[in-house]
């Protein structure tokens, strides 16, 4: 091999560690522990009124006491989120691919999509319930459409900004339109599509829970509102914790996909 080849190890330069006094992970855990401690101690010392913030232990106790009710509500919310996600990701992803890769549509439709995205749809939710009732369908449709918009925009933006050199090379190799779409555009746009997954995921969760709060007979959002109206503060907080767990879990799933897919990107672009 001539001298132009770099050795395999030279490709990954040694990383210099200029550490803070604690590794970031430990610092994060420490902050969390401090917050949880404050949550327990401050209401107990009546530094904050317990009716506004219930101590952590009371929250957990009341959660365990009504475990059945919470589990049922959580089940309803999870099903709604799952269906809404499928809708937002599926329909949003496909529309994004089409709008991003078909030039005439891009100019005409994309600006419209992004201005609709700016409209706070939640104001129209009562109308939706008038049309299709306050059951699960209305939550799925509302949250699905709500999450679909960022998915469309992120996917279209990703496809649109793919380096044309990739497409040109593939065309010179005789790639068909479908091959260019699925073997070049989609993988090249994946980082952007991922951010669409993330934003759409949180919007869907927000959409479902808020819709439940506005008009519903089941689900975590409904439960939280109900407890709040009865001033059962610990239960309200337990409901909030469960919603946080759901978003955390969703985020974790997307993070798994992200780590797998982002392996090809140079580190410096990840920051």
């Amino acid at each position, binding site marked *: *091999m*001539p*001298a*132009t*080849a*770099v050795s*395999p190890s030279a*490709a*990954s330069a040694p990383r210099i560690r200029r550490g803070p006094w604690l590794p970031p992970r430990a610092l994060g855990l420490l902050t969390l522990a401090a917050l949880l401690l404050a949550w327990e101690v401050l209401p107990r010392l009546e530094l904050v009124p317990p009716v506004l913030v219930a101590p952590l232990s009371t929250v957990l106790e009341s959660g365990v006491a009504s475990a059945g009710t919470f589990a049922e509500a959580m089940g309803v919310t999870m099903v709604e989120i799952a269906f809404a996600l499928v809708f937002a990701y599926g329909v949003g992803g496909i529309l994004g691919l089409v709008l991003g890769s078909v030039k005439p549509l891009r100019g005409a439709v994309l600006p419209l999509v992004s201005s609709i995205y700016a409209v706070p749809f939640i104001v129209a939710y009562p109308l939706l319930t008038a049309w299709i009732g306050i059951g699960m369908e209305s939550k799925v449709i509302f949250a699905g459409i709500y999450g679909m918009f960022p998915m469309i925009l992120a996917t279209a933006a990703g496809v649109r900004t793919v*380096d044309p*050199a*990739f497409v*040109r*090379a*593939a*065309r*010179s*190799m*005789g*790639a*068909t339109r479908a*091959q260019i779409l699925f*073997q*070049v555009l989609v*993988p*090249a746009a*994946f980082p952007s599509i991922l951010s669409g997954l993330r934003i759409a995921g949180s919007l869907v969760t927000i959409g479902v829970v808020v819709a439940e709060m506005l008009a519903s007979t089941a689900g975590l959002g409904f439960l939280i509102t109900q407890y709040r109206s009865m001033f059962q503060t610990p239960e309200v907080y337990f409901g909030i914790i469960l919603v946080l767990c759901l978003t955390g879990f969703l985020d974790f799933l997307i993070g798994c996909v992200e780590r797998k897919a982002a392996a*090809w*990107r*140079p580190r410096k672009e990840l920051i």
Partner: protein
Amino acid sequence: MAAVANAPAPAPAGPPDVAVEHLTHVYETANGAVKALDDIDFEVPQGKFVGIVGPSGCGKSSLLLMLAGLLQPSEGRIVVREHALTAPRPADVGVVFQEASLLPWKTALENVEFPLKLRGTARAERRDRALELLELVGLADFRDRLPHELSGGMRQRVSIARGFSQDPKILLMDEPFAALDEQTRLTLGDELLKIWTRHQKTVIFVTHSLTEAVYLCDEVLVMSHRPGRIIDRVTIPLERPRTYEMMATETFGHLRERIWRSIRTT
């Protein structure tokens, strides 16, 4: 057609691999139509290594895109292996692009395999073929590296291997070594000549390096400023295999000089 000014061309065996006939390209801009190429006319016999040089903005790259079937000419036509070219024909024409257009999420091996995958070649077969080509460009040990983990020279080697993987009869190269340093450029040029000798391809090589053009090519076409026209055809009578020592010879200097003068007078 192949009337060459400074030396008699060897009689081509059979029909030319590529015939460019009165090619003109006009494109529209906000300020009106711009003529990029004007009546380009040349032939490339089978197995020849032909260079195209010219000042930047002379339409070399447009010409290459047309030869690849990626851009339609406004007038005239291109005949590749006796059939007019209207769309990319990967079995006949392969392209090695300027900047590494390797897919960044695919490993070196997967990138070399890609043209075969598009064509539906069986997995085992395309893997074998890609490995063989990586071996040929000296990168067998780097087959599982992603492009960003390779040096510029290595990436360009992968590109060349990819160009060969679909086994085209004609290889178009658009300033493939432009982004590389001098030493890498020379080494890669030598390697390319070696592979070329072994695989008997017809090569059309666009470059802005005159030394590279003289060193690699059988014939060099010199293009003028926009609108690009062919203003000189220089046959390179240096014998093969080419060696570095030839660069120091008077003939080499004269040829380089002549091309330079042609470009400068445009």
